[in-house]
């Protein structure tokens, strides 16, 4: 491994240093960590350090105006836990994540099974179905904001045409649903938008899993007389479990920690009814300037994230074994 230095004659000092450096770089025990170092330093500085800072903030009285960190114990946590809006936000965060992922779980499996079939125009369906995931959340949520407009919603128009909405109809005397103005409908809207956004990702993951099941397993089951449901429940479901779990866990994290959908669609309203931990931390910490309480609110996300990470590691290990 002498490099390509084939020039005759004595080596100059510069050559020697250059050569030494090259030999040094050829030593794997050194080169390995050296290549890894910049990325690790960056992550420690801008993920590790801020995380520790978030912990410190949550135990202090820091505000945007007074940047000094004075230790106050768990006061921030006891304060926010007694705040009804925080409790509402905590509950909503779970409700939105679980409800939207339950929807996604069912819809993604149905859609993926349908996409396994060959049919004309599949590329178009794939493209249309992918749109929600490919679009920046803040922008696609604006399209929903307009779709659910209190006066001009085309959904309301369709309802009115079908005589479901308006005076003397099943959905009431008003001419509009006020999707984002009524607490239950606003919550439903947030859940549907989340499910709509995550569905493409989950479908593609499930689809990749379905296509990776060897055909001979399915053939063997068919020869043994298994029908669609038996095949689905006893062969495909167990084989697909890790893949579906990964899809659901990702969807869960993305909805659990999201703040764009709520911020753009409802701003947490009506009257904080759709507030989530992320949006509440933003309102407290950035808009309200109470960095300490904002950090404490956001930290409530952490135990759940940790749990999901552990589950993912287990799944990854299981996937390695099989």
């Amino acid at each position, binding site marked *: 491994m002498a490099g390509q230095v084939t020039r005759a004659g004595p080596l100059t000092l510069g050559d020697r240093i250059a050569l030494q450096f090259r030999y040094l770089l050829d030593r794997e025990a050194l080169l390995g960590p050296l290549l890894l170092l910049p990325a690790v330093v*960056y*992550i420690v500085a801008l993920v590790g350090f801020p995380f520790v800072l978030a912990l410190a903030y949550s135990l202090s009285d820091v505000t945007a105006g007074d940047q000094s960190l004075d230790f106050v114990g768990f006061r921030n946590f006891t304060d926010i836990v007694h705040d009804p809006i925080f409790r509402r936000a905590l509950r909503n965060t779970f409700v939105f994540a679980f409800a939207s992922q339950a929807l996604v779980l069912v819809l993604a499996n149905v859609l993926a099974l349908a996409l396994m079939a060959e*049919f004309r125009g599949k590329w178009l369906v794939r493209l249309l179905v992918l749109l929600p*995931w*490919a679009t*920046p959340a*803040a922008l696609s949520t604006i399209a929903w904001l307009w779709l659910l407009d209190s006066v001009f919603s085309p959904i309301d128009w369709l309802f009115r045409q079908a005589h479901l909405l308006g005076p003397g109809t099943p959905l009431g005397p008003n001419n509009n649903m006020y999707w984002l103005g009524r607490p239950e409908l606003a919550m439903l809207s947030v859940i549907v938008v989340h499910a709509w956004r995550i569905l493409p990702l989950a479908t593609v993951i499930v689809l990749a899993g379905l296509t990776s099941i060897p055909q001979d397993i399915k053939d063997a089951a068919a020869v043994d007389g298994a029908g669609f449901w038996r095949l689905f429940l006893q062969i495909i479901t167990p084989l697909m479990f890790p893949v579906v779990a990964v899809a659901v866990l*990702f969807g869960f*994290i993305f909805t659990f920690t999201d703040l764009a959908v709520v911020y753009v669609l409802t701003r947490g309203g009506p009257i904080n009814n759709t507030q989530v931990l992320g949006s509440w931390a933003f309102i407290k910490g950035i808009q309200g300037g109470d*960095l300490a309480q904002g950090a404490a609110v956001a930290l409530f996300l952490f135990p759940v994230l940790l749990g999901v990470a552990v589950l993912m590691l287990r799944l990854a290990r299981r996937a390695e074994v099989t």
Partner: protein
Amino acid sequence: MNAARYWGSRASVYGVVSLFALFSAFPFFWGLVTMFKRSQDLYNPRNNPFAFGAGGPTLEHVQLLFQETKFVTFAVNSLFVGAVVVGITLALALPAAYSLARLAGRWGEGLGITIFLVYLVPPTLLFIPLSRVVADLGLQDSRWSLVLVYPTFTVPFCTWLLMGFLKSIPRDIEEQALIDGYSRVGAVVRTVLPLALPGILTVVIFSFTLTLHEFVYALAFVSTSSEKTISVGVPTELVRGDVLFWQSLMAAAMIVAIPVALVYNLFLDRFVAGLTLGAVKG
């Protein structure tokens, strides 16, 4: 009997996929129709929202978007932040991925998964302390704050993706180059990088779109409108309480959404292979 069953199953496949396509594409369809509508047509709840009324479609509001709003500035900011972040990401993730794939023996796998898990740490958890870090560095209200912070999610994800790619390239090729007298770095540049080009391209596309998607940091760090990116500029600057601006707003959303979706479509399979931690082999 069998024919009926066949056509029955065909019909149900078409029925199911049409319903899903409708559900997924409906907000985009509505946005596309809206952006070309005239105001007197759009703002009348009696009109059919899906058809163009008197006067037909118009480009007036798309023009307005480009000429009288800061949309172009937002787009330039997004492109700028995206391009610089892609550069930083490659500079950090490529060497790290190579090291994890080739040089780190037993601990490489564990460390690789740890780096991937960093991708799961959401902006929502870190934006408050990072706003302080950004302010201390004097980057508040500047798009440079996003350049500084965005690699926190692109680097872990791209390192993981690239690690998978590099592992799939046979070791023999670069060992041959080492025997031929190249240094390790030279061998990698001449043999591995060209072979990893599809992987690098994937990483470029995904880190760029991840920065385009990002909302939380941009919302928390940047409040000067001339420094905002599309993702935050459009919802915060173009949505005005009382001024109805919907056509231009939809134009802004659609002009960004549709090209991104087309590009995404091409690279999605690799993205999925990365996300599923190798549980699915593409």
